[in-house]
């Protein structure tokens, strides 16, 4: 099991790096989908089966489709002729911090333990409809806000 966890973490790191540094938006979106897919596998291995299904279907699938559609609509997939300055240092610093934290965790024998709804025997129905009901309601309103954003940016006229 540990091998699978390390493979997933390594894949997330590699695809995350590709996603941030890619010059092509489509490639960046696909790399991001790969990060989500690896994260989904990691969640499954760790026992969070329902979360893994959501991660793969929504983050890796649906969100990628929306990204690629938006990039295609805005012609953002075409390469810019002008050379761009890119901050390569930031992702490297962040990865270094993440690596340092991982090494510190291994050296101190740090374990997360098992907590709350994900780690407990609470059923999905119970978590979804009772324990996290407020969050579900919030997510519904967030979707409503997203729909309004699409109307504002794609339907309404530009000039005041």
């Amino acid at each position, binding site marked *: 099991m540990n091998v699978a966890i390390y493979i997933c973490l390594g894949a997330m790191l590699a695809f995350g790096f590709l996603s941030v540094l890619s010059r092509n938006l489509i490639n960046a979106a696909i790399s991001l989908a790969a990060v989500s897919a690896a994260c989904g596998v990691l969640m499954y291995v760790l026992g969070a089966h329902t979360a893994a299904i959501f991660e793969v279907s929504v983050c890796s699938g649906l969100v990628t489709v929306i990204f690629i559609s938006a990039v295609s609509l805005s012609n953002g997939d075409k390469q810019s002729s002008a050379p761009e300055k890119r901050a390569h240092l930031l992702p490297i610093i962040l990865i270094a911090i993440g690596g340092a934290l991982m090494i510190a965790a291994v050296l101190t024998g740090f374990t997360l333990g098992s907590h*709350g709804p994900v780690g407990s025997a609470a059923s999905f129905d119970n978590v979804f409809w009772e324990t996290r009901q*407020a*969050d579900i*309601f919030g997510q519904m*309103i*967030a979707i409503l*806000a997203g729909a309004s954003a699409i109307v*504002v940016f794609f339907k309404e006229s530009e*000039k*005041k």
Partner: protein
Amino acid sequence: MTALRVITQLFLALPLLAIVVNNLIPRETMRHATIGMCAGVAGVQMLAAFAGFAMLAASGKSSFNFALAWDIAKGLNYFHVDLVTLFLLACVGMVTLASTLNALTTIDDHRSSFTNLLMVMMLGMNGMLIVQDLFSLYVFMEVAGLASFVMIGMYKSTRDLEGAFKYMTLSALATIFILTGLSLLFIKAGSLSFSMLDPALFSGTPGDPKTLLCWVALVLLASGYAIKSGVAPFHSWLPDAYESADTAVSIMLSGIVTKIAGVYSLIVLVRLFPGNAALKTALLVLGLFTIVVGALLALQQRNFKRVAAYSSVSQMGYLLLGLAADTRLGLIAALLYLLTHSLAKSAIFTNAAALEQRLGTLDLDEMGGLQAKMPVTAFSSVCAFLSIAGVPPLAGFWSKLLILIALWSAGLKGIAAAALLLSILSGAYFLRVQKKAFFGKLKERWNDVREITGGIKVAEILLTIGTIGVGLGFPLVLIYLAQAGLI
């Protein structure tokens, strides 16, 4: 308690109902009706929250738990209100009402989504105030944030989109901080429910990695909420967002969104972890730094809205100082300061809307002598700036005084003295704005300018009455606090 049960349902049901009705009627042709309906929702929320406040105070209970209407039968209670949140819910209603009155004039017929987004923003803030869990707080914060980004950029000009982009970028940074902080806190606490979080999380055996992570979590959460508050040095997004947004949106952002998304979240931290010396010190340092930076930058601005924006940054520092006192009086002082600042700042942005409508510019160098042509706007602006500068007997004076008393009685006498001295800076940028905009000789090009009319004028009058009225009635609050032994 039956009445309170009905009132609490209104905080979610009314904005949702308004969104449904908004989308059933042709909004382009009934703009005034839809904005008027939102004004009604805001007004009802303000009155309902005040009524709920009175009922809860009279009942002697500290809080009231509830759930969405269809979950009550299941015996679920995942939402709650207390005196603090009911007070803030009333503030949300008040500022939204001021925003809608401005929107009647400033929002054009092609902005049919404005009312939807305004109600979504209101739902986001209401949700933040009634949840009992730090993760749910984050979810509703994102709802309010998402509505804010879209509303700032809704005219799609380069300036609007730049303001929205800056806000979104810094909010993304805040999101990273907050989510990482919540994850680290969850490792030790095993839950993010308010009832499971207490100061004991920070005490453990020396070198315990989980306790260390709780401290890291506290730093990350405080930083994330500070970005949302727009306090220095996390303020860079705020002036651009306020300046580029429509004035009705600026009123929401300055008057209440930053206060609920940022300051209320910090209030939650202070209430969950009372007596945390590190948090207290961080709030003190951030508070003083914010007062100085905001005021100095406000002094250098040439645009009316940017002065108001930097003034908001500066005044946010006083709110942090009230929280840093870490006493019941400090919390009450901060809440009352939030109310008086919301009133005054909404009035100032309403003045900005009036000037922009009549002059077509907000450049202070192009104004001058407008008091003769726009007496209501000039009077309203003078009252609002005097209140913010802390001049008696206006509302801002009393709330600032309470913050100083709270700091003094908490043993932070040096900080109280520094805060008092720094309020001179507020007076300095106030005098500069009034002199450049309203006093002196009227410039010839403004000879034909007339006083603003309609919703903006109504909002100016109501907010000015509020600023003066709260100031005159404030001694009653002081008497109550003295009887309660708080001062």
